[in-house]
Structures are given as structure tokens and as C-alpha cells.
């Protein structure tokens, strides 16, 4: 009976692939842009693919090809690339409590991008332990391969694609804010969290509008965290329903 139930349950990697599909709407158009810009900057298709496969971090790849093409010193190009990616430092520790023991995790960390982190942070606590490695593998692999495929498309036919379907490149990226909204809304569990999360969203939006996209994410997150510590409603109001002082729900997951 239990075996039948187990066999009926979809496999973890399939769930991961299915749930990561919305990411493609954001990844593929940006990857096409990267492929196009990279070849325009003088990199070959193979080099463009190598950059997307190995570095696999959107903003820093644009910076890398831009700085390299403009003749910036190599050490500065590498340092700036790494500096943009420093924000990833907090991702793995945040999902670590939900990662069951497996020798695959060190390899899978290559796929821990902003978007995969956002998805994993919300979904891993809800999945049974037996499905988590498979789920992460499926989600991260789909995102990675779509990024590489998009870069190839951009390098080979980016100019033709963007001139033929200009609206597609504008509409598809909306999948990302839509997905992040769905991931973040359940965390508005109290006035305190609502205020902090709203500050974080607003600060990131402002940073992007003034051209500080890369620093915007850590800066906005820090503003939100600061707000969380500053806004402490009177305990008698009981506004932190379902959330403990440690910022975790009573079920034991970060709220």
C-alpha cells in the first residue's frame, strides 16, 4: 500500500522541473541578450557558451564581457565579477537546514542563482526529505540548461530574433516578478514582516531605477532587515501572529 502510494507520487526531479518552468520566461530572453552582446563584443559562440556554462551569473557575465572588450585590466575584471556575486554568500546557509545529507550538494551549488534560491527557499521546506535532492537537481538543471541554450541562441541568431519578435523579449521577463511575488506573498505574516519586506522591495526598485541594480539586491535586503529590527510593534497587539521572535514560524521554518 505504502509502495503504491510512493510510486504514485511524482518524482522529485520532475516536480523541480515543473516548478522551475516560470524561470525560463526570465532566463531565456536575458540569455539571448547576453549571447548577442557577447558576440558583438568580439567573443566567439564557443567562448560565449563557456562563459555562460562556467560563470553562470547573469549580471556579472555582462560585466565580464563588457570590461574585457573595453580593455580593462584582467585583475579588475575578475574582481568586479566576483564582487557582484558576493550576495550569493547568504543563499546556501539559508536553505542548508532543509538539505538532507547527500554527496551531490557541493556539485549542485553551481546552480544556486538568485532565482533558484528564491524558489528553493520557499519550496524545500514543503517537500518530503526524500524528494529534495531530486527537486533541486531538476529545478537547477532546467534553469542552467535554459541559460546556456538562450546564450547559444543569442550568439547565433540574437539579432534576427530580437528584430522579429521584439514584444516577446519584453513580455516573457514578467514571469520573474510574477513568480517572486507568489513566493514572497505568503511571508507577509505580520505587520512587522510586511513592513520589512515592503521596504526591501521598494529599496530594490529605487536602486534599479537609479541604475544600481547589482548593489541593489544586498542593499535593499539590508534596508529590509534594518526595518525588521526597528519596527517592533507593542507585544500586547499580538501583531506577530504565527511568528516567533527568532523570525521563524511555529512550524520551524523561516517566515
Amino acid at each position, binding site marked *: 500500500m505504502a509502495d503504491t502510494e510512493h510510486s504514485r507520487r511524482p518524482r522529485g526531479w520532475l516536480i523541480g522541473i*515543473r*516548478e522551475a518552468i*516560470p524561470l525560463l*520566461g526570465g532566463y531565456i530572453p536575458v540569455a539571448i541578450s547576453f549571447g548577442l552582446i557577447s558576440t558583438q563584443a568580439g567573443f*566567439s559562440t564557443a567562448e560565449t557558451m*563557456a562563459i555562460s556554462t*562556467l*560563470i*553562470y551569473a547573469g549580471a*556579472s557575465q555582462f560585466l565580464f564581457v563588457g570590461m*574585457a572588450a573595453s580593455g580593462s585590466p*584582467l585583475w579588475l575584471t*575578475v574582481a568586479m*565579477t*566576483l564582487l557582484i556575486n*558576493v550576495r*550569493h*554568500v*547568504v*543563499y*546556501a*546557509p*539559508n536553505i*542548508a537546514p532543509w*538539505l538532507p545529507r547527500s554527496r551531490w*550538494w*557541493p556539485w549542485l*551549488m*553551481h546552480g*544556486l542563482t*538568485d532565482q533558484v534560491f*528564491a524558489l528553493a*527557499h520557499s519550496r524545500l521546506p514543503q517537500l518530503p526529505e526524500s524528494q529534495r535532492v531530486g527537486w533541486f537537481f531538476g529545478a537547477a538543471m532546467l534553469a542552467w540548461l535554459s541559460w546556456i541554450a538562450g546564450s547559444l541562441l543569442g550568439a547565433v541568431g540574437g539579432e534576427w530574433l530580437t528584430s522579429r519578435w521584439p*514584444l516577446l523579449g*519584453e513580455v516573457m*521577463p*514578467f*514571469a*520573474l*516578478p*510574477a*513568480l*517572486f*511575488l*507568489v513566493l*514572497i*506573498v505568503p511571508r507577509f505574516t505580520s505587520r512587522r514582516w510586511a513592513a520589512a*519586506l*515592503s521596504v526591501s522591495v521598494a529599496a530594490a*526598485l529605487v536602486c534599479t531605477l537609479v541604475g544600481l541594480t547589482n548593489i*541593489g*539586491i*544586498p542593499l*535593499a535586503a539590508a534596508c529590509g*532587515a534594518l526595518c525588521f529590527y526597528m519596527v517592533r510593534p507593542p507585544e500586547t497587539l499580538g501583531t506577530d501572529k504565527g511568528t516567533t521572535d*527568532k*523570525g*521563524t514560524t511555529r512550524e*520551524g521554518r*523561516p517566515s
Partner: protein
Amino acid sequence: MSLELWIGMIVAALGTYLIRLLPLLWMQKRLTRSEADGPVDALPKWLVILGPMMIAAVLGVSLVPRTPDAAGWLATVIGLGVTLAIWRRTRSLGWPVVGGVLTFGVVVIVARSLM
């Protein structure tokens, strides 16, 4: 790409990978040490708070439309509203995103044709 640039690219790739990997190894060690307290208690409080804030920040960054004109912003606001409405009904991941993207596209096309 010159040999020097290839080496630079590989260093950047390796560094990015280590930025993602090393904090995991640090946290796993910390979790092993504090297994008796339960896994969540091993997470530093600032880290528990920073996780959702990072997701909120990624949302904020992605809100700016590719073409940030009136039609783009209007489509963003209406698209987010529809996404939220579908999420409230379905509590799923996929349908709200599909609904939001379709709405965004329709609003952009209609708004551009009227403006």
C-alpha cells in the same frame, strides 16, 4: 579570447562557485555541531531574516519593465494584481505566473495601440 582572458574567466567562474559552495559547507558544519538544538536554532537570526529580504529585493529589481514607459508600468501593476488574484484562488506557483504574463502582454499591446 586570449589565454590570459581564459584564465581570468576560469578564476571568475571558480570564485563564483566557491562563493556559492563555501557558505554551505560552513553551515553544514554548524548544523552538525548543534544537531541537539534542532536545525533552525543553528541558523543565526540575521540569516533567517535576510533570506526572505533577499527574495523581496530580487522581486523589487525585477519589477522594472524592459521598456519603462507608461504602458510598461501599467502592465506591470495590472499583471501583478492578476497574479495575486489567481494566487489567492489557486495557492499554486504556475497558474498565477501564466495569468500574470498573459495579462502583462495583453495590457502592453492594448495600451500601446491606444497611446
